[in-house]
């Protein structure tokens, strides 16, 4: 990718448009190798109650300072819990960045939009850089941008579903109107989904399960990296319009036998 095409979030230049999760890998070494292969700079972690049996090696030690951490508020169902989780993450990790997740339904993990906007507003006021996981709805995305979110992160499809981008027209619409970077979050199943997100105009892709639960996470991570870069280049290059009929690519003059 050329140096002139860089993603800037909250004033920070990110070298990769692929944001990667750290959960669900077969083991820690595969996770580390896959993250390396993905080229991701921003990686997500969760914040959880410590085991009262004692302190074990932290994921942060494992990551060894090579990545910019994005703590999430996954699993939170109230604005209050999400805000406290973000504040605990800031204290534990010394970062004011947070992937804000506010779940409205345990089965689909769909965001609770009302509480999401409220929590985002409050976290921005408290000095956080807020990257909200949200619905693929331009109005919700606009509201989140209006309260000061650094990005919007609409879902492609349900978290962990691998169903790809269920509403491409909606994602494209969000991208065309968003005043902040758009990160396609959730639902990516394979490399073509990631490339498609970038072709639709997304500024970045956040994914986890598509890599970690693939048969070969190291290879899938490399595939995702290539897909995000390829999709971005295609977006910048500008695709040809779709036509209903064929248009020959070879010259029409001088045909043999004409």
């Amino acid at each position: 990718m050329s140096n002139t095409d860089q993603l800037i979030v909250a004033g920070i230049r990110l070298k990769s448009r692929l944001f990667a999760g750290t959960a669900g890998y077969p083991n820690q070494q595969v996770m580390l190798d896959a993250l390396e292969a993905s080229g991701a700079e921003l990686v997500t972690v969760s914040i959880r109650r410590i085991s009262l049996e004692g302190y074990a090696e932290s994921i942060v030690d494992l990551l060894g300072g090579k990545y910019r951490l994005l703590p999430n508020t996954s699993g939170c169902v109230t604005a209050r819990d999400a805000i406290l989780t973000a504040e605990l993450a800031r204290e534990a990790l010394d970062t004011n960045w947070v992937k804000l997740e506010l779940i409205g339904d345990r089965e689909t993990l769909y965001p609770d939009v009302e509480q999401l906007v409220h929590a985002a507003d409050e976290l921005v006021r408290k000095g956080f850089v807020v990257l909200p996981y949200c619905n693929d709805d331009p109005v919700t995305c606009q509201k989140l941008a209006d309260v000061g979110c650094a990005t919007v992160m609409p879902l492609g499809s349900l978290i962990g579903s691998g169903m790809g981008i269920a509403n491409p027209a909606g994602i494209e619409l969000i991208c065309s109107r968003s005043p902040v970077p758009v990160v396609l979050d959730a639902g990516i199943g394979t490399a073509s989904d990631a490339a498609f997100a970038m072709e639709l105009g997304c500024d970045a892709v956040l994914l986890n399960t598509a890599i970690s639960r693939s048969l070969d996470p190291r290879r899938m991570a490399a595939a995702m990296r290539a897909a995000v870069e390829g999709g971005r280049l295609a977006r910048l290059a500008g695709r040809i319009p779709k036509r209903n009929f064929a248009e020959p690519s070879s010259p029409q003059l001088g045909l043999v036998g004409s």
Partner: protein
Amino acid sequence: MTRLRINGVEAEIAVSTIAELLVQRGIDPGAKFLAVAVNGEVVKRTEWPDATLRAGDDVEIVRPLQGG
């Protein structure tokens, strides 16, 4: 003995500060990447040695884990 709620579990514990609670629970207060909240408010690491716990306090002790 002080009756506390620690990570959602009720416990009777003979400690008076957050730092003492961590030690009593086998957690090194100097360990990196820990955070503590009492009654929904984050207590900064520098305050752990002096932050007094009272009966009924709701304590959360967290750290980062794998996540998506």
